[in-house]
């Protein structure tokens, strides 16, 4: 992660004609959060298949497996955060009050990751080619989301940002880390996606959970 951020930061800050001071912290923080989103989403289609031994041999609540995978990724995230903190210290960026937004922001994003994992997990157990499809989708998402480039490069209110849910998730988490206040629209859109996604995932779960054991 460190090598990736330093190398990309050095080259892309030249490419975008920005100072490293402006570009690197944003890239570092963006990449940190993105890594967590991407790993969770990539693990989703096979979450129940990978835990087949548990599901087939003991009575276990499937949600525990999802919570376990997400908890593991949060721990890895905290581990990676140490390096990002060193980038911030190098550029003398000290946390201000906006950092407090990070807590509700992360909670909302993790809730979103929860339903994504549950939903894709159930579908992935049934349809085995979902894993490679999700994998390439995540790769595309990395390039079309404002991680290696800054949102302001596409101008305000561009559809490129507006239609990408990942951009909202990033705004809720990266902005407070960079001492910026997340946009109101990020809160509203992320909450709406969360409510809709959780409902869909839970309905599918309630309807199909007894079947999953036969699929894996």
């Amino acid at each position, binding site marked *: 992660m460190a090598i990736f951020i330093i190398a990309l930061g050095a080259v892309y800050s030249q490419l975008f004609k920005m100072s490293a001071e402006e570009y690197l912290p944003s890239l570092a923080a963006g990449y940190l959060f993105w890594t967590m989103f991407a790993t969770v989403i990539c693990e989703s289609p096979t979450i129940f298949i990978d835990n087949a*031994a*548990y*599901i*087939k*041999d*003991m*009575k276990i609540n499937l949600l525990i497996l999802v919570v376990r995978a997400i908890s593991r990724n949060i721990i890895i995230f905290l581990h990676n955060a140490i390096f990002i903190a060193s980038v911030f210290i190098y550029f003398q960026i000290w946390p201000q009050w906006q950092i407090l937004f990070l807590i509700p922001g992360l909670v909302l994003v993790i809730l979103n990751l929860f339903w994504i994992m549950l939903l894709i997990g159930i*579908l992935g157990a*049934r*349809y*085995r*080619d*979902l894993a490679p*499809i999700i994998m390439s989708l995540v790769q595309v998402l990395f390039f079309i989301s404002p991680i290696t480039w800054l949102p302001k490069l596409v101008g305000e209110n561009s559809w490129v940002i507006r239609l990408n849910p990942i951009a909202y998730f990033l705004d809720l988490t990266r902005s407070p880390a960079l001492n910026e206040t997340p946009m109101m629209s990020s809160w509203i859109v992320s909450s709406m996606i969360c409510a809709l996604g959780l409902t869909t995932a839970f309905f599918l779960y309630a309807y199909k959970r*007894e*079947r999953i*054991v*036969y*699929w894996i």
Partner: protein
Amino acid sequence: MASIAVENVTLHFPIIGVGDRSVKNTILNFATGGKITKNSGTMLVTGLQDISFCLQNGDRLGLIGHNGAGKSTLLKVLAGIYHPTQGAVTVQGRILSTLNITLGFEQEATGYENIILKGRLLGLNAKEIESKVDEIAEFTELGKYLNLPVRVYSSGMLIRLAFAVMTALESDILLMDEVIGTGDARFIHKAEKRLNEFMNKAKIMVIASHSEAVIKEFCNRALLLKNGTLFAFGEVDEILSIYQSDEYQN
């Protein structure tokens, strides 16, 4: 008070065809009305057919039958892993199933950590495990090996550890797929004693086994399965003689 009531349980396994496991094909089918790819469809296989019986405190049930007769499937239905397609299973009491005793071991964690992990997985809280951990450690005779990651254990040591944790638990209802056992000649004697105590603690026990000796030794009732149907249910000797008869074997 523990009890199990199984009423008219029928279980179908859905076997999903290979071509039906693909998102791409499903979308393609939907768009073209099935002209491009052929749907291999979902087949239903009957695992259990119309099974009913009741068990009360003190019952020791042996499940017998050929391979594929439905013994393990029935155990999994009792354990709550499979949900019956029709009928109902009513269970009162805490169930413990020993279908896969090494399930949940973390290769990189030490023996002690795995005792705790396994205990938590089986539904104990931190305090309950704390009170059992010394007794488990002592029984395994693994000594200082318990401080090493379990990936360096031999398979015998691993099973010994799993066996010790499993048999330290208390349950109302015990489900076993073949009797668990372990160890070298000396250890097996010790294990047998512990296993007997473990089984005696349970109010109801269900064992699936191919061994008539096991059924005779541990069970007071037997249930004979054939192709997923209940062939006979009753006293052990009576059922074992039916098992041997031509009527069942053909």
